[in-house]
């Protein structure tokens, strides 16, 4: 009960201190050894998917904290007559020695635990910093008018890849509209589409379309295994780093003489009032055609540019040279 001069917070603090005292006394009497509480933790962790896989750091630290306290009060329960009394006597006689040893072990364990907590704090702080700098991967950007089988650049692509040896990859393939046109033109083409559900809706049942990430797919392709690559809707909103990574993978997948076609929206399409929302939300923006010629030239390719009739898009087709620079 609160005393006259004691406020509510002080009263509750006093109650909590009394509860702490009771817990200490109960432990000292062997009513609930710390060892048993630790076993409770371990028992529940047997059911936890966290424990079986090396565990989350927080859960592991919790276990370390629990284990850092070494209980010097040995339980004295016994099923034998007089056993408890004998054990109690032995405990009293050896208490000074056990207490001395466990005190040092506890100190060491506490120091290890504190170090781990400091490490945990630093890792969390680093994670928070990384989160704040997280860059959202560029999304596929398509306009119905320029990403369709009857678009002006489809014929150009079919012609450019007509003489290519080896398979031609189209990404992002959508429902397979360009892969279908390439196959109809005699090209051994297949498509990769990262957006879920589109491949399933494909009207062209016989086409080789795969639902997976474009970068992940290119990483799995053997070096120089493809004859050509068509990128559409992919590079428009990419950041500089993403674009470099993609081009490195494409160069590695193509042999000398391989063909790369890049279809992109133009800066004008990106600035238009009815531009897709990615124009505002993407980290990057479409490059000028001349920049692509520069980039592909740096890769050892010779590139030509075709601009769309409405100024909304353009196509760059490059043939890699005989000596392709190694990826950075």
């Amino acid at each position, binding site marked *: 009960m609160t005393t006259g001069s004691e406020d509510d917070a002080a009263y509750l603090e006093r109650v909590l201190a009394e509860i702490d005292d009771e817990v200490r006394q109960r*432990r000292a009497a062997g009513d609930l050894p710390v060892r048993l509480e630790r076993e409770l933790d371990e028992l529940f962790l047997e059911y936890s998917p966290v424990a079986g896989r090396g565990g989350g750091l927080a859960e592991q630290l919790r276990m370390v904290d629990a284990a850092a306290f070494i209980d010097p009060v040995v339980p004295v329960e016994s099923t034998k007559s007089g056993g408890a009394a004998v054990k109690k006597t032995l405990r009293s006689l050896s208490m000074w020695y056990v207490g001395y040893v466990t005190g040092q072990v506890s100190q060491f364990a506490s120091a290890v635990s504190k170090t781990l907590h400091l490490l945990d704090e630093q890792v969390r702080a680093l994670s928070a910093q990384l*989160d704040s700098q997280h860059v959202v991967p560029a999304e596929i950007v398509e306009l119905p008018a320029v990403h369709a089988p009857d678009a002006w650049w489809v014929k150009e692509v079919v012609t450019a890849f007509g003489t290519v040896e080896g398979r031609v990859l189209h990404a992002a393939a959508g429902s397979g509209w360009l892969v279908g046109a390439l196959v109809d033109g005699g090209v051994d083409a297949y498509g990769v589409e990262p957006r879920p559900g589109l491949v399933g809706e494909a009207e062209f049942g016989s086409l080789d379309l795969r639902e997976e990430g474009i970068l992940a797919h290119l990483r799995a392709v053997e070096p120089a295994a493809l004859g050509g690559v068509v990128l559409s809707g992919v590079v428009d909103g990419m950041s500089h780093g993403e674009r470099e990574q993609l081009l490195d993978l494409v160069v590695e997948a193509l042999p000398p003489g391989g063909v790369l076609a890049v279809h992109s929206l133009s800066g004008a399409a990106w600035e238009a009032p009815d531009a897709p929302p990615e124009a505002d939300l993407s980290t990057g923006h479409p490059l000028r055609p001349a920049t692509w010629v520069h980039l592909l030239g740096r890769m050892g390719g010779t590139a030509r540019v075709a601009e769309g009739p409405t100024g909304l898009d353009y196509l760059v087709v490059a043939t890699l040279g005989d000596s392709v620079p190694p990826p950075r």
Partner: protein
Amino acid sequence: MTEPAAPGPGPRPRAVHQFVPALIPRDATGSHTLLLREALRAAGWRSEIFAEATHDELLDESIPVEDYDQHAAPGDVLVYQFSTSSVVAEVLAARSEPLILDYHNVTGPEHYEGWEPATARRAAAAQQQLRLLAPRAVLGLADSAFNERDLVAAGCRRTAVVPVLVDLDRLADPDPRVARRLAARKAEGGSDWLFVGRLVPSKAQHQLVKALWAHHRLYGPTARLHLVGSAPSGRYLAALRSFVVDLGLEAAVRITGEVSDAALAAYYAAADVYVSLSVHEGFGVPLLEAMRSGVPVVALATGGLPSTAGTAALLLADDEPSRVAAAVERVLTDQSLREHLVAAGRERISALSLEESGRIAVAAVASVVGP
């Protein structure tokens, strides 16, 4: 869904519309949204609720979020009830109306890792959406100072603390059938512990089971633990059940699942103590429900709980089973402590009454909309 007519022939009042990922009955965010709509309408503004998903029971209370364009009018102010990741966040990010972010906290992905990978991903997405919306919100509302810190860290320029709107009177009529069953068990002796909340790792129902086991060992095997709340994590539920069986506590631990308001009222009425060892709480509505029902509260001091409870709960610094057991036993046996906590609880809920919280919320919204 009826909207009160504008009084007299004057101009059409401005609208303060709310957006919510899911409108669900008996859910803290859902109830808050419905009560806030009434408070906004009572203040003279037009107000509707636009939801991505709505529970069947509340279909008449909301409009699909994709239909907002048909209702949009110049001068609208939008309030987003933020509690999870949702396409609503992206819809609002692309709009130009003034946005008020009413933030109810997001349980971090680390609490679900290993248990529910999909939920962990959603939680991470929610944190990302908070960082997307916070900088463009004209005002951020937080249930507690603890939640307010999240808003500021996410880039919110102006914030205010507005308690969750809770209608505690809905617990006025306990379900007599449930009450009879609980009374029959109580007649056998022993105490009834209660915790209300979803069965998920962050609510730490497993720590409550450990504390009950310790209490049985220290003070006799008579106490019972009632865990009330939905079980969205199948893995955690299975682990908890196996743990209870391993400890031989099947007869002492009851996992009820989600219950009606009347059944919940019966559980509160029968409870001798409300115990929370949750490790992540933005506000803690059940604490207020327990206080309203005259049930003393023992809780782990975590997140926003200390500011919600004030000095009306016995707040523990850690969740060691023996310490929790001793604290509960003290509350059960120390009549003066019990009376103190119950009386302080009643004072606390009067400070956080629906009327008072509604007044604070309307004043905060008015600071954006104007009188």
